[in-house]
Structure formats: C-alpha cells, structure tokens
C-alpha cells in the first residue's frame, strides 16, 4: 500500500507537467547530496541531460565521479545552509538527498526548502516511519522514496511472476514489463518458432531479445532460442501466461518464506500478505520475532536463524514456492540462500546490498537478486526525467530503458500504422489511450496524446523522446 502511495503521488506531479505541455525540458539544475551507491547511479543516469552538482563529505568519492562525468562537485556537508547557498541553491530546480543517513537527507531537504522554496526536494529514506510521517503531511519534503518499500514492491512483482527476472508496471498496472531467461525447459510452442507464427499470448509483444552481448529488436521471422533473455511488454494476464510458457509447472504463488524480519523483511511480508499470499517469517532475534508477530497477525513467525538444517527440513521450508532472503547482512543472505537451495528451495530471491556482490549470488544459484540502492535510484531518477516521461525503468544494468512517454502533436510518428513504423533501436510495446492499455497490432495507428511504452537502448533515449 505504501509503495503505491509513493507511486501515485509521483504520477500526479509528473502528469501535471504533461498537462501544461512542456517541450523537452532543457537543462534542469539538480543538486545531488551524497555520492554513494545511490548517488552515483543517479549521476550516471542524469548527467548528460541535466546540470548536476554533487555534494559529499568524502573527497575521494567526489573525485571518482568528477573524473567520469561532467558534473560540478562540492566537498561539503549537503545539509549545511552555507554550503547549499554558496553552491547556488536558489538556482536549483531539484534537490535529491540520497546519503545513507535518513536524518541528513531530511535536514538537507528542509534547509533547501527554507533557502529556496522553488526547489523540489526528493529524499531517500530507509526508515518506513518517516514515510508515514511524510504522508501525514508532517515533513516539509516534496517526495520521499523509501528503500524498504520500493524493494518490497519490486520483490512482490517478481513473486507474482516467478519465472521472470525483473518485472515492472506501467499505466497503473495495466501494462507489465517482464524479462525472462529462456531455457530449454520452456514450452516448445515458443521455442524455435518464427514469432510471426508462434502462439504467443495475446496482448503482448516481445520488445527485445538479448542474445549474448547483442540486442535484437525482433521482426516477424525472429525465433526464440534457449539461452536468450527476452523482454516482454504486455497485460498482467499475458505476463502470467508467458510465465507459464517459460517455466511450465509453476503455478500461482501461495506460500512464501522470508528470512529476516528486519525493516526490509517486514515490509516485504506485509505487502505479500496484502496480496493474500501466505508468508512464513524466520527471524533470529526473539524480541524482534515477538514484535513482528504482534504486528502481522496473518504471518507465521518463527524464531530461528535459518542456518539450522534440521529446522529447514522439519518445517519443510523447501516446500515454499519462493524463498526470500532479506537479512541485513549480505554474507548471511548468501549462506542461507545456498543452504536453502541445498535443501531443495525452489525459487530464491535475495536482497543484495552491495551491487558487485550480485554476481556472487547469481553464481550461487540465487534466481533473482534485488539491489535496494538500484531500485531507489530508479525511483529518484524519475523526477529528473522529461516530465512527459512518466516512468523510467532501467534494465540490464542501464543498457536499456523502458519509457512511458506521452506523444506530442508534432511527432513524426503520429498517424503512422504500427507495422509501418521505422525501428530506430526502439520498439513500442504498448500504448495507453484514454487511460486504457492497448496492445497494438500492425494496423493500429498512433494518435496524438497516446501514451507510449517504449523499449529502447539507454543511449538512444534522448532521440526517442525527441521523436515522440
């Protein structure tokens, strides 16, 4: 519930931007407080379109960033009024506070507001309590992005479609984007058949096939091979069907085990329970277990470490369709995940706090890794993008992006039939017309005002935005 609240608010703001009919926004001046993982990811995504100033107390981190990107850097405390005003906060359009300390972020945003009322403030937080206080209007911050809640939401989407590698939603859930790893176990109806003839689910399109290092935007004669990674854009129902085709035999998820009932684990459990999915929570601290058991009456909470093979066997942890590892420590998550897989866990999702460790986890056989910082960065980047671009999703570690753009009147694509559209390293997966999602067949024509879900390479984003 919390996640959808943040998303709804995000969309409201950006939609008003679209209503005023802004053209492609020129340089937005953005202050980024914090050059850690989240900050660096944000800088990477925004540096070429906008004017960035990055603040951090650590000179070395700043040096690393200024060497790679053309941005201003300030070595100083982003929560200091003097530092901000010296750097020209009054001229900034957007301030993103994304250090690892919630309190610093909030203070930085509030001081920014005090100095310059026109600067929109976005705060990153890990404490869901601040999110609640903010939603009640008690915090003078424009937007809050909660790592825990966004991570939980991301995991929820993955759990909903277990065979997918990453999923995202657009247009209030009407359009889903799913990435699948195709194996030989997939349904033969889609393997090796030319797409033109293959019986793929209706209301969906394959946006791209990633084969090795190359991306293919498929035409009708393309086939899907084992080892491919495909990106599908379609309706939620179609996504479910694709899931069944890719890994036949996995039904709807009913039972999930979550290791670790910290803030992340609890947020995940809460979201899952709201979807009617049964959750078993495993928490090592007795105190914490009791607290969470009192908070979540529908969850089954166990006071155990998750490292005890006897416990795993006895409680048939492996019977759960999905096992989620959300402990605070990457090392513990890794060990527990491996142990669980040894005991037969079917599908594992792990929260990985350190991006480089993701490879380690994938090598261990963990099916999906979720990096809270990446997800947080994604959310934050939204605010800086073209306001007509309502949603940004980063795939393949930033090689590709999926955009949700409203077409302009003077776009050259208006009036063209979809089958006639020239493909410039981009594919339109779906359109949203009058609030309803339409999955266009060849004869469909693009109209002004249509919202378009476009799959494109990151480097072509600006082109695509201009074209539309």
């Amino acid at each position, binding site marked *: 519930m919390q996640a959808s609240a943040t998303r709804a608010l995000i969309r409201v703001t950006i939609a008003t931007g679209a209503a005023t009919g802004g053209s492609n926004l020129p340089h937005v001046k953005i202050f980024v407080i914090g050059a850690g993982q989240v900050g660096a990811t944000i800088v990477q995504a925004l540096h070429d379109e906008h004017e960035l100033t990055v603040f951090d107390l650590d000179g070395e981190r700043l040096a690393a960033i200024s060497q790679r990107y053309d941005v201003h850097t300030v070595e100083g405390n982003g929560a200091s009024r003097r530092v901000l005003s010296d750097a020209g906060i009054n001229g900034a359009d957007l301030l993103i506070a994304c250090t690892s300390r919630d309190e610093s972020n909030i203070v930085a945003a509030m001081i920014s507001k005090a100095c310059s009322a026109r600067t929109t403030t976005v705060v990153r937080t890990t404490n869901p309590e601040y999110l609640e206080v903010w939603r009640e209007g008690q915090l003078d911050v424009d937007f809050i992005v909660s790592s825990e809640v966004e991570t939980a939401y991301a995991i929820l989407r993955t759990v909903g479609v277990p065979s997918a590698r990453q999923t995202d939603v657009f247009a209030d859930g009407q359009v889903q984007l799913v990435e699948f790893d195709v194996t030989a176990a997939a349904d033969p109806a889609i393997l090796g058949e030319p797409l033109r003839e293959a019986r793929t689910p209706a209301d969906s399109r394959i946006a791209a096939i990633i084969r090795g290092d190359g991306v293919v935007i498929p035409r009708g004669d393309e086939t899907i091979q084992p080892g491919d990674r495909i990106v599908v854009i379609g309706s939620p129902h179609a996504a479910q069907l694709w899931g069944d085709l890719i890994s036949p035999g996995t039904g709807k998820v009913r039972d999930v085990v979550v290791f670790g009932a910290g803030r992340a684990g609890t947020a995940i459990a809460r979201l899952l329970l709201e979807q009617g999915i049964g959750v078993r929570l495993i928490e090592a601290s007795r105190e914490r*277990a*009791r607290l969470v*058991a*009192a908070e979540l*009456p529908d969850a*089954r*909470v*166990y006071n*155990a470490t998750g490292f005890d093979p006897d416990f795993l066997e006895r409680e048939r942890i492996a019977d759960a369709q999905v096992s989620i590892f959300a402990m605070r420590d990457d090392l513990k998550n890794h060990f527990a995940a491996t142990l669980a897989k040894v005991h037969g866990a079917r599908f594992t999702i792990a929260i990985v706090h350190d991006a480089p460790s993701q490879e380690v986890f994938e090598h261990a056989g963990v099916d999906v890794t979720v990096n809270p910082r990446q997800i947080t960065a994604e959310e934050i980047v939204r605010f800086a993008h073209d306001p007509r671009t309502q949603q940004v999703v980063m795939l393949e570690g930033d090689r590709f992006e999926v955009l949700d753009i409203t077409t302009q009147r003077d776009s050259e694509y208006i009036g063209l039939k979809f089958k006639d559209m020239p493909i410039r390293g981009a594919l339109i997966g779906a359109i949203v017309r009058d609030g309803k999602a339409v999955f266009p067949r060849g004869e469909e024509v693009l109209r002004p005002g249509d919202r378009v879900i476009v799959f494109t390479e990151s480097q072509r984003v600006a082109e695509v935005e201009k074209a539309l």
Partner: protein
Amino acid sequence: MSPWRPRSAVDLAGAINLVATLTKYLSLAPLVPAAVAVGYGESPWPFLFAGAIVGGTALGVEFLTRGNHRIGSREGFFVVAFTWLTAAAIGALPYLLSGEVQLDRPIDAYFEAMSGFTTTGSSILVDIEALDRSLLLWRALTQWLGGMGIIVLALAVLPRLRVGGRQLLEHEAPGPEIDDSLAARVRDTARRLWLLYIAITFAEIVALAVLGWTGIDERMDLFRAVAHALTTLPTGGFGTEGRSIEPFAATTQWVIAFFMIVAGTNFALMFRALIRRDGRILPRDEEFRLYLTLLGFASLVLTIELWTQGIALGEDAIRHAVFQTATMMTSTGYASADFAQWTTLTSITLVGLLFIGGSAGSTSGSVKVVRHLLVGKLLRREIDETIHPEIVTPVRVNNRVVDERTLRSVLSFVLLYIGIFIIGASLLVLDAARTGIELGPLDAIAAAATTLANTGPGLGFAGPVGTFEPFSDFSSFVMIGLMWLGRLEVIPIVVLFSRHYWRNA
C-alpha cells in the same frame, strides 16, 4: 488518644479505616426495609436498630483509625476482602433482631446475609413465604447492593490489583499511583455504571409490574416486581416464592430470562454501546459472541433432552431450557422448574454451566467466559508450538495481543478455582458422612460448585425449590467461605494468606 498504627508493610489502620467508611454508608441501607415495614404494618425496629448499631460502630472504628493513610493497591486487597465480611455481618443483624424463627441462629443469619451480598442466592430458609415482606425486601436489597459492589469491583478495583477478567480486554494500563488514585478510579467508573445498573433495574420493575397490572401474570404485583428486579440484575436469585419462578406466567419467565442474560453481559461494553449509540460494539466483542454461543448450545441440548424425555414439550421445553441455561450460566439461580427432578444429562449440563459463568465485567460469578476464551486459545497455541517448536504466536482477543503475564494469571486462577472447588466438595462430603445427612457425590459437587460460583441452587435437597438448612454448621461455614472466595475471584483472599503480603520481604 492517638490512633493505633501497627507496624507492617500494609497500612492496616488505613485499610480498616476505609472499610469503616464504607460500612458507615452501608448502615443507611436498612432504612429502606424499615420504610417498607411501616408501609405493610410490620415492625421497623429490627432495621432501625441494626442501622444504628452498625453506623455507630463504623463511626467509632473510623475515629479510632483516623489519620494520614496511604491507600494503595496493597491495602486494596484487604479492603475488598473485609468489606464483604463486614457487609455480611450488617446483613445478618436485621435477621437476628427480627425474631424470625428461621433466622435466629447467628451462623444461619450470616449464611443468608453472605448469600445476599455475594449475590449467591442459596438459602437456609425452609419456608420463604412465611417471612415478613420487609425482611424479604431486605434479602433482595442485600443482593442488589452486592451487585453494585460487584460492578465496581470487577471493573475498577480488581483490574488495578491485576486480578479479574476484564483488564485483559480493555486497555487498563495500571500506571503509577498518584495519591489515592485507587479511590478516584473507582469513583469514576462506579458512577457511570451504577447509573446503567439502576436504569436496567428500573426497566425490569416496570416490565414485571406491567405484566401484573395487565393481568397477564396474576401472581405478579408491585412488591414482587421490585423484589425480583432487585435480585435479577445482580444475578442473585433470592425470590419471594417457595418454588422460585415456577409459579409465574410464561411471559414473566421469558422477561426474567431476558434480564438475566442482560445482567450477565459486560456492563462497560453495554454502557459504551448505549453512549455511542453503536449497536455493533456488542457483537464485535469476542467474549460476547462466545457467551451467546454457549447459551444457545446449552439451551439446545436441554431442549432436546426435555423433549425426548417427555418432561416438557413445545414452547414449555424451549422456555425451561433457555431459562435454566441462562440462570446457571449467569449465576443468577432462579428456576422456572424444579430441575432437580429432571434427568442425569440435564443435571450434568447444568452443573457444568456452573463452571463457565457469565461475561467478565458483569455481576456474574464463576470462571467467566473470557477466561475460557483465553485458556482455549492458549491450549491451541500450545499444540501449535509442539508441532512447530520455533513458532512465535501471540494470543489475541478482539485483535489485541494479550501479554504473557496476563495469560499466566488466567491459568493460575482457573487452577485455583478448581482446587478450591475440590477441597470444598470434599469437605462437604466428609461432613455429610459425619452428620449422617444424605448427600450424594453429584449433590456435593453441585453444592460446592453453586456456592463457589455464587449461583444458588444445587441438586438433591438443596435444589431450586429446596433449602440449605439440613447442612451442619461446619458445612455452612465451608459454604460461606466458598461464596466469599468465589465472589472476590479467589486471589485477593489468597493474597491475604501470603507471608509476603504482611512483611516487606
């Protein structure tokens, strides 16, 4: 003359002082039957003398124990326990002074008075109808006043002493004691609930009186309406007829059954439902739902048994089943029929109901439904924990988590209750053997259970149309003890017997 102050961890003088104050107020009560006596041409003197003696003694003790007293939780136990003992003494005086032959022995008078203030309703009278009306009214009044005391006890005093059933369900945070916060808390709660109590009593008087005036019930008159209303609300059961409620019309029996069920409901919950005009407050309460379910189920069992055994048919069967179920569960003790003559199954069912009780926060006695609810949930969790040793499951009632300490205290209470019952029943059996009265095992169980549960009628000779007279003085003494223990929910009295209570160690 300086006030006497003994040295102990308990401010005994202070406690006695408070008891004396309460007694002082109680000494005004005999004025009511005195007035009634004058109205019916009977002698008011027993009541006036009793009032004077008690009032005078109370004032004297109050004076002797005057001074700066700190009445805290500790003193609360003593006050609660002794108020009932002295109240029974006050109740007994008019009986003794009245010259009524059935009540001229102190132990008998005390038994009857204790049965009054504890709202039990067991009687050593053989011929109820031979009593003066003023005396009958006094009997009824002792129960009605006892009921008022119970409400305050159950909803204000005991929760602060961390006893009783209801603090489990409300957010009764005990909190720090500021001055005599005990007295202040009592005053607030008492005022509100007494209003409700008086209002419902009045409603029943009106209902019954109307039945009499309209001729629906020829036996009902204003006096009887008042007497029965005064004893239904406290779930007492002291009637005016030798055969309890049997002589009255069917409609009257239904009306009394209804008010018994109301009296067995949580008064605080009813108050809240009325004040907020929210009809859903009651059905949302888990205890209330279980209360009604048990009433329904037991009624069904009895109906079927009565019907199939040919004891009653049609509406009679349903009415008698519901009435007897309600009376035994809410611990009232009225009877619409002589159920001692029914079958073994009904006896066992009715004695079983003695161990369930009404809702917490009502005037009912016995274990009370909320405790059964908690024990049930606790047992379910135990089994769950046996299957899943690591599972952590808080017990919830009305969606609120119940803390472990409270659960333990509920279990302790249930064990104590059963233990005391067994001791009581054994003593009765042994004493019966000694004195040669005929008391079978089920009858002994019934007698012990009914007095401990403050219900009233047992089986055998002490059945609903019978009497407790044949019991020896020793047995009477045991049963007085059981009534006292049951009414005060056992623990305050047991605490008084603990060394830790009197010393600082």
